[in-house]
């Protein structure tokens, strides 16, 4: 039999029908929905007069537009409130399980899916959200879709999808102190650009990927879309199985032992062929920061904004200069020491317990800088509970930080958590687009450690100054 990549194995086993010279009809095992990209899809079902085909395979949450303060009160923004109410109505009408606002298991869709055991190795997973790639950390084919496709899945549990090409990214070498999974993926994106993996589905492998925790792997897969990839996945291993074994329950799985035996088969054949292969040396990675308005515009925190690319081509195209101008930066500038106004920790990229532990590691026993406004937003209720249980909320409080309630918050600023015009935000989220965190906001993407260092000093600071070699960061 022909050798296959893990991606091929999962994809091919989910084809209901292949259309000649067309897309495949792909069966979807798990469908996540949220309030912003689902209402028009439900309207479509209503117009057609058809039900949700397999309501048990769809899981819903409210996360994108909800406030992160006083969640027990009605949402003050009328349009947002309407969207959240419509989600509740639709879930009730069509029999879909909803972890909505004020539900004890509410949270960001890509945080709660894994923590509630709905994301399992070998699945096909879609959601009307580009960061669905997060779930690839479990060895799944998970990708973001548009609302027309949400409607397809609700109506038929299938999606029409052309098969992407395959890319393998290997990461070996020794990871230095203060370098996290966020820095790894930001480094890769800065090397291959914000469109470097468009058209591809990525498999991450190598000794460094193997050494990472599930949460760290999720951060890497999460940002696959930021280099244009359709998604990214990591073959499941003992780390994956341990994570799943420790969950209180896994819906639909009664004998985890036999499931694990099946999941162990999920890997690329040794001689499988990828359309593109890239290798990186982890030893070259430093804490990363972005300086522009797409995630490809990233550099080591102690570097200068590049004047030319690695091939020596002048980078100063009008788009590049427009981007720097928006940020208030110039080519050749160093950013270390640059004053910062806001710090945001949270989002589906860095809103899990390990991220808040990493942040706490630096702020513990210190005080927040006076010029910093901090948004500390757990990814889910469960993360919030764990922060309380581990005493992290106290650590944050003592350092002058207020912990908010869960939600997507300032990652896309659909709610009140907006960064004001012209202000600089060091953010653990995934996009530094113009106005992403509020009209005129200026975002510098970074790891939780780098965000913490900026929160303490009030300036862009190398987090390695706060970390000793002994206290090696596992994130």
């Amino acid at each position: 039999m022909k050798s296959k990549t893990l991606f091929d194995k999962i994809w091919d086993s989910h084809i209901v029908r292949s259309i000649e010279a067309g897309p495949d009809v792909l069966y979807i095992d798990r469908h996540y929905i949220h309030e912003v990209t689902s209402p028009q899809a439900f309207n479509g079902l209503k117009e057609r007069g058809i039900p949700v085909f397999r309501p048990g395979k769809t899981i819903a949450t409210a996360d994108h537009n909800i406030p992160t303060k006083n969640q027990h009160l009605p949402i003050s923004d009328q349009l947002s409130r309407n969207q959240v109410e419509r989600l509740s109505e639709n879930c009730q009408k069509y029999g879909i399980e909803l972890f909505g606002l004020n539900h004890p298991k509410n949270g960001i869709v890509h945080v709660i899916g894994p923590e509630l055991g709905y994301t399992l190795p070998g699945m096909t997973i879609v959601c009307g959200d580009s960061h669905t790639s997060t779930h690839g950390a479990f060895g799944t084919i998970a990708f973001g879709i548009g609302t027309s496709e949400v409607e397809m899945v609700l109506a038929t549990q299938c999606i029409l999808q052309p098969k992407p090409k395959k890319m393998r990214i290997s990461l070996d070498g020794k990871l230095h102190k203060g370098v996290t999974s966020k820095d790894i993926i930001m480094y890769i994106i800065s090397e291959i650009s914000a469109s470097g993996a468009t058209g591809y589905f990525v498999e991450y492998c190598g000794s460094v990927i193997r050494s990472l925790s599930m949460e760290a792997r999720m951060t890497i897969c999460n940002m696959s879309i930021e280099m244009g990839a359709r998604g990214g996945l990591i073959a499941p291993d003992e780390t994956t199985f341990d994570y799943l074994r420790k969950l209180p329950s896994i819906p639909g799985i009664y004998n985890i032992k036999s499931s694990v035996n099946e999941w162990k088969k999920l890997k690329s054949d040794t001689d499988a062929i990828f359309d593109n292969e890239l290798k990186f040396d982890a030893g070259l990675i430093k804490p990363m920061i972005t300086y522009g308005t797409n995630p490809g515009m990233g550099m080591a925190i102690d570097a200068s904004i590049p004047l030319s690319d690695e091939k020596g081509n002048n980078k100063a195209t009008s788009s590049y200069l427009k981007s720097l101008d928006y940020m208030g930066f110039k080519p050749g500038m160093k950013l270390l020491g640059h004053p910062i106004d806001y710090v945001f920790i949270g989002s589906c990229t860095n809103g899990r317990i390990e991220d808040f532990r990493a942040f706490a590691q630096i702020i513990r026993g210190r005080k927040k800088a006076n010029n910093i406004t901090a948004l500390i937003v757990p990814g889910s209720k469960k993360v919030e509970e764990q922060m309380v249980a581990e005493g992290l909320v106290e650590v944050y409080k003592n350092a002058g930080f207020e912990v908010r309630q869960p939600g997507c918050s300032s990652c896309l600023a659909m709610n009140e958590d907006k960064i004001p015009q012209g202000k600089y935000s060091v953010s653990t989220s995934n996009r530094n687009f113009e106005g992403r965190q509020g009209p005129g906001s200026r975002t510098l993407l970074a790891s939780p450690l780098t965000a913490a260092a900026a929160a303490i000093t009030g300036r862009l600071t190398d987090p390695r100054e706060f970390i000793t070699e002994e206290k090696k960061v596992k994130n």
Partner: protein
Amino acid sequence: MPKVKFDILESTCVALPFENVDTDQIIPARFLSATSRQGFGDNLFRDWRYTKTGEKNNEFVLNKPEYTGKVLVAGKNFGSGSSREHAVWAIFDYGFRAVVSSFFADIFMNNALNNGLLPIVISDDLLKKLLSLVQNKPDTKVKIDLEKQTFTILSTGDSVKFGINPYKKECLLKGLDDIDFLLSMKSSIIAYENNKSLT
């Protein structure tokens, strides 16, 4: 349900000569709170179209009366970022029927095709030429023939073939609907499920 059809389009163009135009620029997140597909065109490129104080930014191409048309010509990697289909709804609602670039983000491309907005990929060189032509001569017309898969700049005679998935081409030409197509396969889907539960 029948969908919008696309066959031949002859139109002037609007040029947006920036690279990496992401879906947050096309329609900022704060305008995503609607529950219908209509009306997003008013906020297309909102933060470029209007100043901080809410006035029209006369420097922006959509506010320059000499530039009109149903074809948007944009720099490479158009539509990157968020999967929001609202970006396509906004472009369509504003009145565009085709977007031309040298490179599109994957999800944007799918969303466009699912809504009757034709994404056309041309070479970097031709894109550069077209952008400069349109900027200098706003009456520059292009012709798009979906059946023949040709894209032509009428004033210069530059004509290229563009690629499109044959299934999607047929859908657009005939106004066919993906969901009707999938619903017609219900028995295959159920057979797949039954087969899978046995393994």
